[in-house]
């Protein structure tokens, strides 16, 4: 507290034009301390590592609680203010024309992200107390969780693309550490490396986007004192420039948010402990890409082409992932592909001009998908880390809290009103339709039906019907910790309490946020996202809002009915996975994930490896061969020259005589 360097910018708000740009002002009080929100978890990370098992989870939870409380305070402070605020901490790099500072931005969009990240983060921390109990590296886990939180918070509060990128890569590091947490199993660390490397591909695109942005705008700050921030002068981009920048940003976001073609790391990331999957790979880290796109929306709206590409990438990803999810058998794998699919919806929302709608779905998704993952963890905890849904079932009476909260989440994700997911998904589809992207809307509706279908399948196979396990059955731990006897029971309170909270939010969250044009969240976010007024998109389509809602709900109901018909408790599924009704070559294709992983492996690992070996051969044989060749030549020369030293007098005499004769001839000729 006290006097901190404050970045003072004062302008009027400008409406219309290419983008809605906030006035950026400073204020004192809570907003000047926004940098504490990421810093405290970072300290929590360091302290937990340094103090070790003495503190267990307490430091981490305290740090997370602090950040959550501050996020709430910041929320209240931002309320009623139309502006964005920048708090500058210190210079970072200033060399030549390049200048970047440790500066943090707070506005309406930031507060939404802050609340989601710290809120879900806190719930996951609490959940982990129960879930990770007994783990040999229990304390380390909480340290890494705090590290992740710190990086994610830097990401959402960064006031320039560079600070955002620092958080962006930081969550990549945390992801690497957490996915590979149980590193004794080579598959886990392999998944961790895959995640990091795939993300790095997107990071390269992000970096090139930053280079390009800097060359166009002269800065990487979102807002600057003289209105030259990249969001403020987005209009200077040429049509091609805007397209290039938009596509680069999309590619960067596609890695983090698991879109085509870079989604392959997310399903493998399920190797990490379930709280990690819930926090990072459902609620927060994967949403960073969506956040990036929404934050840079003033740039994106400069190019309708870029937005169309974004919309299609999101749509196709949503469809592809939903198809694959239909035929996966792992309790977490299904949810992983579901996450990819829902992220596709968010990206679709961004692409069709529904920035706030995309964020809304981000929020509701954090609720119900986070809940679903935590519930999956609860089930796995009860069933000794069983992963296949074909070995579950009949858990309704045994784990009531888990069951009912999952029930709420299932309805939410399927898009049944008045649960949260209905509002957000419907708004995205409505926006797509209204803005003229009819094909996208159709695919979105179909995908919604598929979503309802595979989630019903998930729900039914995990909780309903006859148990496909026996009390006292011996199962081997997939993490190699020997065998355990199955005695399923409800999880401890530390695990069920977060479930209840998220469950409640899944039920009422959508309604509370009252998302309609003019509703709470929409109005809240308006100042922070770009206006699409200049894109020339239509305002409404032929069908009315009500008709669109009915179509969405009907699609969801069709999916649910289909799911129940095939997997409901009335069916005899006691044979386990061989009872799977969806069979045939098409289903096989889905189960094998369209062979995308195999294709990537052949192309990148295979061809890449060949290229690397060829290069290494080139280096040692050709280039080094040339070097050794030079040495060889001089050695050869020496060897051959040595032959003249025969040690025989006659040789030398012969040479002398010959030379004299030669000399005589030369002299005589010259004299002539």
């Amino acid at each position: 507290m006290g006097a901190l360097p404050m970045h003072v910018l004062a302008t009027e708000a400008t409406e219309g034009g290419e983008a809605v740009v906030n006035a950026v002002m400073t204020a004192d009080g809570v907003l000047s301390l926004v940098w504490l929100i990421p810093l405290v978890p970072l300290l929590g990370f360091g302290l937990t590592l340094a103090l070790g098992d003495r503190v267990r989870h307490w430091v981490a939870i305290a740090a997370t609680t602090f950040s959550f409380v501050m996020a709430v305070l910041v929320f209240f402070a931002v309320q009623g203010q139309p502006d964005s605020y920048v708090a500058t901490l210190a210079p970072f790099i200033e060399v030549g024309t390049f200048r970047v500072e440790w500066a943090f931005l707070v506005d309406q969009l930031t507060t939404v992200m802050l609340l989601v990240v710290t809120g879900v983060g806190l719930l996951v921390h609490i959940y982990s107390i129960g879930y990770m109990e007994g783990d040999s590296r229990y304390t380390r886990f909480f340290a890494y969780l705090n590290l992740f939180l710190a990086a994610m918070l830097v990401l959402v509060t960064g006031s320039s693309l560079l600070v955002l990128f620092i958080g962006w890569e930081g969550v990549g590091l945390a992801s690497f550490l957490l996915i590979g947490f149980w590193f004794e199993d080579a598959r886990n660390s392999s998944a961790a490396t895959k995640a990091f490397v795939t993300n790095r591909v997107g990071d390269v695109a992000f970096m090139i986007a930053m280079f390009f942005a800097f060359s166009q705008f002269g800065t990487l700050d979102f807002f600057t004192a003289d209105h030259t921030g990249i969001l403020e002068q987005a209009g200077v981009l040429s049509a091609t420039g805007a397209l290039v920048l938009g596509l680069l940003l999309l590619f960067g976001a596609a890695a983090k948010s698991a879109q085509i073609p870079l989604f392959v790391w997310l399903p493998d990331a399920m190797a990490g402990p379930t709280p990690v999957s819930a926090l990072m790979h459902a609620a927060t880290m994967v949403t960073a890409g969506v956040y990036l796109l929404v934050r840079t929306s003033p740039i994106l709206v400069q190019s309708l082409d870029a937005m169309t590409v974004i919309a299609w990438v999101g749509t196709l990803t949503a469809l592809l992932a939903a198809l694959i999810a239909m035929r996966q058998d792992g309790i977490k794998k299904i949810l992983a592909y579901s996450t990819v699919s829902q992220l596709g919806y968010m990206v679709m929302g961004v692409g069709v001009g529904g920035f706030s709608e995309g964020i809304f779905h981000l929020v509701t998704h954090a609720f119900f998908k986070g809940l679903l993952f935590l519930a999956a963890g609860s089930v796995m905890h009860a069933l000794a880390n069983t992963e296949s849904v074909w070995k579950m079932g009949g858990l309704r009476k045994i784990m009531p809290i888990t069951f009912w909260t999952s029930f709420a989440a299932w309805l939410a994700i399927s898009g049944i009103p008045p649960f949260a997911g209905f509002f957000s998904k419907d708004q995205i589809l409505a926006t797509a339709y209204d803005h003229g992207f009819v094909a996208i809307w159709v695919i979105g509706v179909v995908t919604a039906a598929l979503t309802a279908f595979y989630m019903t399948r998930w729900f039914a196979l995990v909780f309903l019907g006859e148990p496909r396990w026996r009390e006292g059955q011996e199962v081997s731990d997939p993490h190699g910790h020997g065998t355990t006897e199955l005695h399923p029971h409800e999880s401890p309170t530390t695990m069920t309490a977060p479930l209840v909270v998220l469950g409640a939010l899944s039920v009422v969250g959508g309604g509370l946020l009252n998302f309609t044009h003019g509703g709470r969240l929409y109005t809240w976010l308006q100042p922070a996202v770009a206006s699409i007024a200049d894109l020339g998109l239509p305002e409404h389509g032929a069908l009315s809002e009500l008709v669109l809602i009915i179509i969405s709900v009907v699609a969801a109901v069709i999916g649910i009915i289909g799911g129940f018909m095939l997997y409901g408790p009335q069916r005899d599924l006691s044979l386990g996975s061989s009872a799977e009704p969806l069979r045939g070559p098409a289903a096989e294709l889905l189960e094998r994930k369209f062979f995308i992983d195999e294709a990537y492996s052949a192309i990148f690992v295979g061809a890449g490896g060949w290229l690397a070996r060829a290069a290494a051969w080139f280096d040692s044989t050709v280039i080094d061969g040339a070097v050794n060749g030079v040495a060889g030549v001089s050695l050869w020369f020496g060897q051959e020259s040595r032959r003249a030293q025969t040690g025989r007098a006659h040789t030398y005499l012969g040479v002398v005589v010959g030379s004299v004769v030669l000399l005589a001839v030369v002299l005589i000729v010259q004299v002539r």
Partner: protein
Amino acid sequence: MEFFTDNLVTVTLVLPILGALGIGLFTESEDGARWTALGASVLTLVASLWLVVDFDPDAGVQAVDSLSWIPSIGASLTVGVDGISLILIVMTAFLTPLIVLSSWEHPDRLRSYLMAFLALEAASIGVFAAQDLLLFYVFFEFSLVPMFLVIGMWGGANRRYAAVKFFLYTLVGGLTMLVGIIYIYNFIGGTSLAFADIGLLLTETPLSLLEQRWLFLAFFLAFAIKAPLFPVHTWLPDAHTEAPTAGSVFLAAVLLKMGGYGFIRFCLTWFPDASTELATGSGSGFFSVPWLMVLSVIGILYGAVVALVQPDIKKLVAYSSVSHMGFVVLGIFALNATATSAGVVQMVNHGLSTGALFLLVGFLYDRRHTRMIAEFGGLAKSTPVYAGMFLLVVMSSIALPGLNGFVGEFPILVGTFSVMPWAASLAAFGALLAAIYLLWAYQRMFTGPLDGAANEATTDMTQREIWVMVPLVVVIVAIGLYPQPLYDLVEPSVQQVLANVAQ
């Protein structure tokens, strides 16, 4: 006392020499040698830091000490520092005590070993501080001798080959530079070989483009071999692999930087037109291609690609050095303040990160006497502290933001992008490749099941080893979070060099 503060640069230069002589003449036990070496190197560090305190970044070359040497050809013993020299000297002085500490228990002829490194330190500081052309040349070539001995006497199985290769290869470059030096000497009429005088003369009567091209080539070869730049880099993998730990550290951290330093000090300053031509491709015919950028980008990508399939961890790191120095040279020849200053800062960062990496690999080699990645597995379980440090240094090497590698690499690429977008975009892939080969190596060595009794028995870091690494880790993180002091030190000097180029 004033004598010391007035001649700080000379003091910094001479202290390691005195240390080496002290070890040779006055100590008999290994302990005596150790403490003398440590004392001398720490004192050198103190002296260099003192220089920083008194340093004025905008004042160009300062703290100049001059002594007449060979008046008939105008050679003098002149030393001084500007921002670029100083930062490299401090880095050298910072690393030498750590090297001494890491060699504390070296089993073979310890006294001579430490003497060699002190001599190396002196030679390196001499290279960076020299303000006279002949003096520079002497130090430049002299640094080869202790390094040759270190590799040849204390190195691995193939040390003879590696040492001779290193020596001859680098020497050839030095010889072409000597031809250039002789030409310059004739050109200036043989009056003075001091940098200041040569610089002055060259601004008054600049060399013709043809002369510049040839001289650039002469000097360039020496520094390109040193840097190393593709395709004259193949001495590096062998030298690094066969050298003992401390030798690899010094080679990677300091010797390579002489290449980058030489580019800035000579090529950019004295042959600006030729440099511009080759860096931007603004000439005609052969010179319409920006060769310097092309070679740098090739070096970045090629070094990384070859590193991917190395089974020997030291060779992997050696090729990663080729890749990282490619970034440095790319930045230097982008010819703008951002990229070139970042290139200098990245030289320091690379020295710290790669030095740390070699030290860590050395600790492992001391225990297991193998460098083959396949021999390791699951080490994070038996050596958690070591694994943590290794991961941190790996992250620094792959330019994770928040650590030092990023704060050099990013401005290099930003600056390069403004002049040659394709080069920066291609170079950015180097960051991706670095992540692949380093993380994959980490994965193979540290994760997975602890297979084999050898891996289980590997002991974690000792107190001494931790003390060696802690300063490095602290600096890596500190620079990563707040690099501005480095840039403040370097940028004005770089601006002065570039102002000359722009004309």
